[in-house]
Protein backbone atom coordinates (compact mmCIF):
# COMPACT_ATOMS: atom_id res chain seq x y z
CA UNK A 1 0.00 0.00 0.00
CA UNK A 2 1.25 3.40 -0.94
CA UNK A 3 0.77 6.03 1.74
CA UNK A 4 1.28 8.64 -0.98
CA UNK A 5 -1.99 7.60 -2.64
CA UNK A 6 -5.13 8.71 -0.86
CA UNK A 7 -8.74 7.86 -1.59
CA UNK A 8 -11.43 10.35 -0.57
CA UNK A 9 -15.09 9.32 -0.44
CA UNK A 10 -16.80 11.68 -2.81
CA UNK A 11 -20.20 12.66 -4.15
CA UNK A 12 -18.69 13.35 -7.58
CA UNK A 13 -15.62 12.72 -9.69
CA UNK A 14 -13.47 15.84 -9.13
CA UNK A 15 -11.47 17.79 -6.52
CA UNK A 16 -14.32 20.32 -6.30
CA UNK A 17 -16.87 17.60 -5.47
CA UNK A 18 -18.15 17.37 -1.92
CA UNK A 19 -16.79 14.69 0.39
CA UNK A 20 -19.37 11.93 0.83
CA UNK A 21 -19.48 11.37 4.58
CA UNK A 22 -20.55 7.72 4.19
CA UNK A 23 -17.83 5.21 3.48
CA UNK A 24 -19.60 2.02 2.43
CA UNK A 25 -22.41 3.79 0.61
CA UNK A 26 -20.25 6.55 -0.89
CA UNK A 27 -21.00 7.44 -4.50
CA UNK A 28 -17.32 7.03 -5.35
CA UNK A 29 -13.72 7.77 -4.46
CA UNK A 30 -11.43 10.43 -5.80
CA UNK A 31 -7.98 8.86 -5.74
CA UNK A 32 -5.10 11.33 -5.48
CA UNK A 33 -1.44 10.54 -6.02
CA UNK A 34 0.30 13.10 -3.83
CA UNK A 35 3.63 12.78 -5.66
CA UNK A 36 2.29 13.43 -9.15
CA UNK A 37 -0.89 15.36 -8.20
CA UNK A 38 -2.75 13.04 -10.56
CA UNK A 39 -6.34 12.22 -9.71
CA UNK A 40 -8.66 9.47 -10.84
CA UNK A 41 -12.20 8.47 -9.94
CA UNK A 42 -13.41 5.09 -8.76
CA UNK A 43 -17.16 4.56 -8.95
CA UNK A 44 -18.62 2.90 -5.86
CA UNK A 45 -22.18 2.67 -7.14
CA UNK A 46 -22.19 -1.12 -6.93
CA UNK A 47 -21.79 -0.96 -3.15
CA UNK A 48 -24.64 1.51 -2.78
CA UNK A 49 -27.19 -1.01 -3.92
CA UNK A 50 -25.91 -3.97 -1.89
CA UNK A 51 -28.20 -5.32 0.80
CA UNK A 52 -25.23 -6.04 3.03
CA UNK A 53 -21.46 -5.86 2.86
CA UNK A 54 -21.27 -2.41 1.26
CA UNK A 55 -18.46 -1.33 3.57
CA UNK A 56 -16.41 -4.42 2.75
CA UNK A 57 -17.01 -3.97 -0.97
CA UNK A 58 -15.97 -0.32 -0.71
CA UNK A 59 -12.81 -1.33 1.19
CA UNK A 60 -11.98 -3.78 -1.59
CA UNK A 61 -12.48 -1.02 -4.16
CA UNK A 62 -10.09 1.25 -2.28
CA UNK A 63 -7.48 -1.49 -1.99
CA UNK A 64 -7.74 -2.25 -5.69
CA UNK A 65 -7.10 1.42 -6.46
CA UNK A 66 -3.78 1.06 -4.61
CA UNK A 67 -4.56 3.68 -1.98
CA UNK A 68 -2.78 3.62 1.38
CA UNK A 69 -4.99 6.20 3.09
CA UNK A 70 -8.74 6.76 3.15
CA UNK A 71 -10.41 10.06 4.02
CA UNK A 72 -14.09 9.74 4.88
CA UNK A 73 -16.81 10.72 7.31
CA UNK A 74 -17.99 7.56 8.98
CA UNK A 75 -16.45 4.12 8.65
CA UNK A 76 -18.21 1.07 10.09
CA UNK A 77 -16.49 -1.73 12.01
CA UNK A 78 -16.31 -4.30 9.19
CA UNK A 79 -15.02 -1.81 6.66
CA UNK A 80 -12.49 -0.60 9.21
CA UNK A 81 -11.33 -4.13 9.86
CA UNK A 82 -11.02 -4.80 6.13
CA UNK A 83 -9.06 -1.59 5.50
CA UNK A 84 -6.77 -2.31 8.44
CA UNK A 85 -6.12 -5.85 7.18
CA UNK A 86 -4.94 -4.36 3.91
CA UNK A 87 -2.71 -1.89 5.79
CA UNK A 88 -4.80 1.09 4.68
CA UNK A 89 -4.89 4.00 7.11
CA UNK A 90 -8.24 5.54 7.90
CA UNK A 91 -9.04 9.20 8.55
CA UNK A 92 -12.59 9.72 9.79
CA UNK A 93 -14.91 12.65 10.52
CA UNK A 94 -14.07 14.37 7.25
CA UNK A 95 -17.23 16.05 5.98
CA UNK A 96 -18.77 19.35 4.84
CA UNK A 97 -15.84 20.18 2.59
CA UNK A 98 -14.69 19.54 -0.95
CA UNK A 99 -12.34 16.72 -1.85
CA UNK A 100 -9.66 19.31 -2.65
CA UNK A 101 -10.01 20.94 0.77
CA UNK A 102 -9.79 17.55 2.47
CA UNK A 103 -6.64 16.67 0.55
CA UNK A 104 -5.06 20.02 1.43
CA UNK A 105 -5.87 19.54 5.09
CA UNK A 106 -4.33 16.09 4.97
CA UNK A 107 -1.18 17.41 3.30
CA UNK A 108 -0.84 20.09 5.98
CA UNK A 109 -1.01 17.38 8.60
CA UNK A 110 -4.28 18.65 10.05
CA UNK A 111 -6.01 15.29 9.82
CA UNK A 112 -5.03 12.34 11.94
CA UNK A 113 -5.63 8.68 11.34
CA UNK A 114 -7.93 6.66 13.58
CA UNK A 115 -7.40 3.31 15.18
CA UNK A 116 -11.10 2.50 15.69
CA UNK A 117 -14.26 2.77 13.61
CA UNK A 118 -16.64 5.64 14.38
CA UNK A 119 -19.87 4.24 12.93
CA UNK A 120 -22.05 1.35 14.12
CA UNK A 121 -22.38 -1.85 12.12
CA UNK A 122 -24.63 -1.47 9.10
CA UNK A 123 -25.10 2.16 10.02
CA UNK A 124 -24.14 3.62 6.67
CA UNK A 125 -27.29 2.57 4.88
CA UNK A 126 -28.78 6.00 4.24
Amino acid sequence: MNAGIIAVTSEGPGMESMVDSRFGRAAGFVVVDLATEQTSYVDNGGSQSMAQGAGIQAAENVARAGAGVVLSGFVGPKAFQALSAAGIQVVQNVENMTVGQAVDKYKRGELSTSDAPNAPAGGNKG
Partner: protein
Amino acid sequence: MIYAIASGKGGTGKTTVTASLAAVWDGPLTAVDLDVEEPNLHLFLAPEITAEEPAFLEVPVLDAARCILCGECAAFCQYKALSLMGKTLLVFPEMCHGCGGCIALCQEGALSPGGRELGHILEGSAGAARFLMGRLRVGEAMSPPLMRQVKARLRRDAAGDVLIDSPPGVSCPAVNAVMDADVIVLVTEPTPFGLHDFRLAVEAFRPLGKPLGAVINRAGIGDGRVQDFCREAGVPVWAELPFSRAVAEAYSRGEVAARAVPEMRGMFLALMARMRGAAAASNPEEADHA
Protein backbone atom coordinates in the same frame (compact mmCIF):
# COMPACT_ATOMS: atom_id res chain seq x y z
CA MET B 1 -53.51 -27.07 5.17
CA ILE B 2 -51.21 -24.29 6.29
CA TYR B 3 -52.80 -21.00 7.34
CA ALA B 4 -50.56 -17.98 7.88
CA ILE B 5 -51.90 -15.25 10.14
CA ALA B 6 -50.15 -12.04 9.12
CA SER B 7 -50.52 -8.28 9.46
CA GLY B 8 -49.06 -5.21 7.79
CA LYS B 9 -47.86 -3.89 11.13
CA GLY B 10 -47.48 -4.98 14.73
CA GLY B 11 -50.12 -4.47 17.36
CA THR B 12 -53.19 -5.38 15.31
CA GLY B 13 -53.95 -8.41 17.44
CA LYS B 14 -52.53 -10.96 15.03
CA THR B 15 -51.23 -13.13 17.84
CA THR B 16 -54.46 -13.08 19.83
CA VAL B 17 -56.38 -14.04 16.67
CA THR B 18 -53.97 -16.93 16.13
CA ALA B 19 -54.37 -18.02 19.76
CA SER B 20 -58.16 -17.92 19.58
CA LEU B 21 -58.19 -19.87 16.34
CA ALA B 22 -55.94 -22.48 17.92
CA ALA B 23 -58.31 -22.68 20.88
CA VAL B 24 -61.40 -23.46 18.75
CA TRP B 25 -59.76 -25.46 15.95
CA ASP B 26 -61.17 -28.94 15.45
CA GLY B 27 -58.94 -31.71 14.19
CA PRO B 28 -55.18 -32.14 14.55
CA LEU B 29 -53.33 -28.83 14.66
CA THR B 30 -49.85 -27.43 14.99
CA ALA B 31 -49.62 -23.83 16.19
CA VAL B 32 -46.35 -22.23 15.10
CA ASP B 33 -44.84 -18.94 16.20
CA LEU B 34 -42.67 -17.78 13.31
CA ASP B 35 -42.37 -14.24 14.63
CA VAL B 36 -38.95 -15.30 15.84
CA GLU B 37 -37.75 -11.79 16.65
CA GLU B 38 -40.54 -11.27 19.15
CA PRO B 39 -42.36 -14.52 19.74
CA ASN B 40 -45.37 -14.12 22.02
CA LEU B 41 -47.90 -16.75 21.00
CA HIS B 42 -46.77 -18.86 23.96
CA LEU B 43 -47.91 -16.11 26.32
CA PHE B 44 -51.50 -16.80 25.24
CA LEU B 45 -51.38 -20.53 24.58
CA ALA B 46 -49.29 -21.33 27.66
CA PRO B 47 -47.87 -24.46 26.05
CA GLU B 48 -46.05 -27.18 27.90
CA ILE B 49 -42.55 -27.12 26.38
CA THR B 50 -41.07 -30.57 26.03
CA ALA B 51 -37.94 -29.82 24.01
CA GLU B 52 -35.71 -26.82 23.48
CA GLU B 53 -32.75 -26.97 21.16
CA PRO B 54 -30.31 -24.42 19.81
CA ALA B 55 -30.34 -23.92 16.04
CA PHE B 56 -27.20 -23.25 14.07
CA LEU B 57 -26.28 -21.95 10.67
CA GLU B 58 -23.32 -23.58 8.97
CA VAL B 59 -20.66 -20.90 8.50
CA PRO B 60 -17.06 -21.31 7.33
CA VAL B 61 -14.15 -21.54 9.77
CA LEU B 62 -10.78 -20.67 8.32
CA ASP B 63 -7.58 -22.62 8.86
CA ALA B 64 -5.19 -19.81 7.91
CA ALA B 65 -2.24 -22.21 7.76
CA ARG B 66 -3.79 -23.99 4.79
CA CYS B 67 -5.10 -20.92 2.98
CA ILE B 68 -3.04 -19.92 -0.06
CA LEU B 69 -4.90 -16.59 -0.41
CA CYS B 70 -6.20 -17.41 -3.87
CA GLY B 71 -9.33 -15.37 -3.17
CA GLU B 72 -11.72 -17.74 -4.92
CA CYS B 73 -14.01 -18.13 -1.93
CA ALA B 74 -14.24 -14.37 -1.48
CA ALA B 75 -15.05 -13.86 -5.14
CA PHE B 76 -17.78 -16.48 -4.86
CA CYS B 77 -19.53 -15.21 -1.74
CA GLN B 78 -22.25 -12.81 -2.80
CA TYR B 79 -22.84 -11.69 0.78
CA LYS B 80 -19.32 -10.34 1.38
CA ALA B 81 -18.88 -12.66 4.33
CA LEU B 82 -15.39 -13.38 2.99
CA SER B 83 -12.95 -10.78 1.77
CA LEU B 84 -9.36 -11.04 0.67
CA MET B 85 -7.60 -7.89 1.83
CA GLY B 86 -3.88 -7.75 1.27
CA LYS B 87 -2.39 -10.87 2.82
CA THR B 88 -5.40 -11.63 4.98
CA LEU B 89 -8.56 -13.57 4.25
CA LEU B 90 -11.22 -11.98 6.43
CA VAL B 91 -14.21 -14.03 7.54
CA PHE B 92 -17.33 -12.25 8.79
CA PRO B 93 -19.41 -15.16 10.10
CA GLU B 94 -22.29 -12.89 11.12
CA MET B 95 -22.81 -11.98 7.46
CA CYS B 96 -22.82 -15.55 6.18
CA HIS B 97 -26.08 -16.97 4.84
CA GLY B 98 -24.90 -20.55 5.15
CA CYS B 99 -24.96 -21.56 1.48
CA GLY B 100 -21.87 -23.75 1.97
CA GLY B 101 -20.44 -22.73 -1.41
CA CYS B 102 -17.10 -21.47 -0.17
CA ILE B 103 -16.44 -24.64 1.84
CA ALA B 104 -17.15 -26.84 -1.20
CA LEU B 105 -15.06 -24.62 -3.43
CA CYS B 106 -11.81 -24.30 -1.50
CA GLN B 107 -9.28 -26.70 -3.04
CA GLU B 108 -6.92 -26.39 -0.09
CA GLY B 109 -9.38 -27.59 2.53
CA ALA B 110 -8.80 -24.34 4.40
CA LEU B 111 -12.49 -23.80 5.12
CA SER B 112 -14.46 -26.17 7.31
CA PRO B 113 -18.04 -25.98 8.57
CA GLY B 114 -18.65 -24.31 11.89
CA GLY B 115 -21.82 -23.06 13.52
CA ARG B 116 -23.29 -19.67 14.25
CA GLU B 117 -26.06 -19.91 16.78
CA LEU B 118 -29.25 -18.48 15.34
CA GLY B 119 -31.43 -18.98 18.36
CA HIS B 120 -33.59 -21.71 19.83
CA ILE B 121 -36.42 -23.91 18.62
CA LEU B 122 -39.00 -24.90 21.22
CA GLU B 123 -41.52 -27.68 20.88
CA GLY B 124 -44.38 -28.78 23.07
CA SER B 125 -48.13 -28.99 23.27
CA ALA B 126 -50.91 -26.53 23.97
CA GLY B 127 -54.04 -28.47 24.82
CA ALA B 128 -54.63 -30.87 21.97
CA ALA B 129 -52.43 -28.87 19.59
CA ARG B 130 -48.76 -29.34 18.94
CA PHE B 131 -46.80 -26.15 19.59
CA LEU B 132 -43.66 -24.98 17.85
CA MET B 133 -41.73 -21.73 18.08
CA GLY B 134 -38.44 -20.15 17.14
CA ARG B 135 -36.68 -17.55 19.24
CA LEU B 136 -33.94 -15.54 17.60
CA ARG B 137 -30.72 -15.01 19.55
CA VAL B 138 -30.33 -11.42 20.76
CA GLY B 139 -27.89 -9.80 18.36
CA GLU B 140 -28.62 -12.18 15.50
CA ALA B 141 -29.52 -10.11 12.45
CA MET B 142 -31.05 -12.73 10.15
CA SER B 143 -34.34 -14.37 10.98
CA PRO B 144 -35.12 -16.31 7.74
CA PRO B 145 -32.53 -19.08 8.38
CA LEU B 146 -34.05 -19.83 11.81
CA MET B 147 -37.56 -19.63 10.35
CA ARG B 148 -36.57 -22.18 7.71
CA GLN B 149 -35.38 -24.58 10.39
CA VAL B 150 -38.64 -24.19 12.31
CA LYS B 151 -40.58 -24.85 9.11
CA ALA B 152 -38.46 -27.91 8.34
CA ARG B 153 -39.80 -29.46 11.55
CA LEU B 154 -43.31 -28.86 10.30
CA ARG B 155 -42.75 -30.89 7.19
CA ARG B 156 -41.39 -33.79 9.17
CA ASP B 157 -44.73 -34.12 10.92
CA ALA B 158 -47.24 -33.09 8.29
CA ALA B 159 -50.43 -34.44 9.87
CA GLY B 160 -53.29 -32.01 10.36
CA ASP B 161 -53.54 -28.28 9.90
CA VAL B 162 -51.00 -25.63 10.71
CA LEU B 163 -51.56 -22.10 12.02
CA ILE B 164 -48.58 -19.82 11.59
CA ASP B 165 -48.25 -16.64 13.64
CA SER B 166 -46.20 -14.64 11.11
CA PRO B 167 -43.88 -11.69 11.74
CA PRO B 168 -45.63 -8.34 11.21
CA GLY B 169 -44.86 -6.16 8.21
CA VAL B 170 -44.08 -6.96 4.60
CA SER B 171 -40.30 -7.41 4.76
CA CYS B 172 -38.28 -10.52 4.00
CA PRO B 173 -39.17 -12.44 7.23
CA ALA B 174 -42.90 -11.76 6.76
CA VAL B 175 -42.85 -12.99 3.17
CA ASN B 176 -40.77 -15.99 4.23
CA ALA B 177 -43.46 -16.92 6.77
CA VAL B 178 -46.44 -16.77 4.42
CA MET B 179 -44.62 -18.27 1.41
CA ASP B 180 -45.44 -21.89 2.19
CA ALA B 181 -48.98 -21.23 3.40
CA ASP B 182 -52.08 -22.36 1.53
CA VAL B 183 -54.14 -19.47 2.85
CA ILE B 184 -53.18 -16.03 4.18
CA VAL B 185 -55.25 -14.29 6.86
CA LEU B 186 -54.48 -10.58 7.18
CA VAL B 187 -55.37 -9.03 10.50
CA THR B 188 -55.98 -5.28 10.50
CA GLU B 189 -57.60 -2.51 12.45
CA PRO B 190 -60.23 -0.13 11.05
CA THR B 191 -58.05 2.97 11.53
CA PRO B 192 -56.19 5.14 8.99
CA PHE B 193 -52.84 3.67 10.10
CA GLY B 194 -54.28 0.20 9.97
CA LEU B 195 -55.57 0.80 6.46
CA HIS B 196 -52.22 2.10 5.25
CA ASP B 197 -50.29 -0.95 6.43
CA PHE B 198 -53.06 -3.31 5.40
CA ARG B 199 -52.92 -1.94 1.87
CA LEU B 200 -49.14 -2.50 1.75
CA ALA B 201 -49.62 -6.05 2.98
CA VAL B 202 -52.28 -6.80 0.36
CA GLU B 203 -49.94 -5.47 -2.33
CA ALA B 204 -47.01 -7.51 -1.01
CA PHE B 205 -48.80 -10.82 -0.48
CA ARG B 206 -51.27 -10.87 -3.36
CA PRO B 207 -48.65 -11.66 -6.02
CA LEU B 208 -48.03 -14.95 -4.17
CA GLY B 209 -51.33 -16.08 -5.69
CA LYS B 210 -52.79 -17.55 -2.51
CA PRO B 211 -56.30 -17.12 -1.18
CA LEU B 212 -56.22 -14.10 1.09
CA GLY B 213 -58.86 -12.78 3.47
CA ALA B 214 -59.11 -10.01 6.04
CA VAL B 215 -59.90 -10.10 9.72
CA ILE B 216 -60.90 -6.68 11.01
CA ASN B 217 -59.99 -6.59 14.64
CA ARG B 218 -61.48 -4.15 17.13
CA ALA B 219 -64.19 -3.37 14.57
CA GLY B 220 -66.16 -0.31 15.56
CA ILE B 221 -63.25 1.81 16.84
CA GLY B 222 -62.57 3.53 13.48
CA ASP B 223 -64.28 4.35 10.24
CA GLY B 224 -65.45 2.08 7.42
CA ARG B 225 -62.54 2.73 5.10
CA VAL B 226 -60.88 -0.66 5.59
CA GLN B 227 -64.16 -2.33 4.65
CA ASP B 228 -64.47 -0.03 1.61
CA PHE B 229 -60.94 -0.86 0.56
CA CYS B 230 -61.61 -4.60 0.89
CA ARG B 231 -64.69 -4.30 -1.27
CA GLU B 232 -62.85 -2.35 -3.97
CA ALA B 233 -59.78 -4.58 -3.89
CA GLY B 234 -61.84 -7.77 -3.84
CA VAL B 235 -60.43 -8.96 -0.50
CA PRO B 236 -63.08 -10.95 1.37
CA VAL B 237 -63.68 -9.95 4.97
CA TRP B 238 -63.71 -13.21 6.90
CA ALA B 239 -64.38 -11.76 10.32
CA GLU B 240 -65.12 -8.47 12.05
CA LEU B 241 -64.23 -8.90 15.68
CA PRO B 242 -65.79 -6.36 18.02
CA PHE B 243 -63.80 -4.68 20.73
CA SER B 244 -65.63 -5.25 23.96
CA ARG B 245 -64.78 -4.80 27.59
CA ALA B 246 -64.99 -8.53 28.12
CA VAL B 247 -62.41 -9.15 25.39
CA ALA B 248 -60.06 -6.50 26.76
CA GLU B 249 -60.30 -8.02 30.21
CA ALA B 250 -59.59 -11.47 28.85
CA TYR B 251 -56.45 -10.19 27.13
CA SER B 252 -55.27 -8.37 30.21
CA ARG B 253 -55.44 -11.67 32.10
CA GLY B 254 -53.49 -13.34 29.28
CA GLU B 255 -56.54 -15.38 28.34
CA VAL B 256 -57.67 -16.36 24.89
CA ALA B 257 -60.79 -14.44 23.83
CA ALA B 258 -62.42 -17.42 22.11
CA ARG B 259 -62.27 -19.32 25.39
CA ALA B 260 -63.08 -16.53 27.83
CA VAL B 261 -65.92 -14.80 25.94
CA PRO B 262 -68.73 -17.08 24.71
CA GLU B 263 -69.84 -14.99 21.71
CA MET B 264 -66.24 -14.75 20.49
CA ARG B 265 -66.05 -18.50 20.29
CA GLY B 266 -68.79 -18.52 17.65
CA MET B 267 -67.03 -15.81 15.66
CA PHE B 268 -63.76 -17.72 15.58
CA LEU B 269 -65.56 -20.92 14.59
CA ALA B 270 -67.10 -18.98 11.68
CA LEU B 271 -63.67 -17.60 10.79
CA MET B 272 -62.21 -21.11 10.82
CA ALA B 273 -64.98 -22.29 8.49
CA ARG B 274 -64.27 -19.45 6.05
CA MET B 275 -60.53 -20.17 6.09
CA ARG B 276 -61.20 -23.83 5.38
CA GLY B 277 -63.63 -22.91 2.63
CA ALA B 278 -61.00 -20.72 0.96
CA ALA B 279 -58.44 -23.51 1.21
CA ALA B 280 -60.84 -26.05 -0.26
CA ALA B 281 -61.83 -23.73 -3.11
CA SER B 282 -58.22 -23.29 -4.16
CA ASN B 283 -57.34 -26.99 -3.73
CA PRO B 284 -60.38 -28.76 -5.22
CA GLU B 285 -58.58 -32.08 -5.57
CA GLU B 286 -57.55 -32.31 -1.95
CA ALA B 287 -61.04 -31.31 -0.88
CA ASP B 288 -62.47 -34.23 -2.88
CA HIS B 289 -60.28 -36.66 -1.02
CA ALA B 290 -61.15 -35.22 2.35
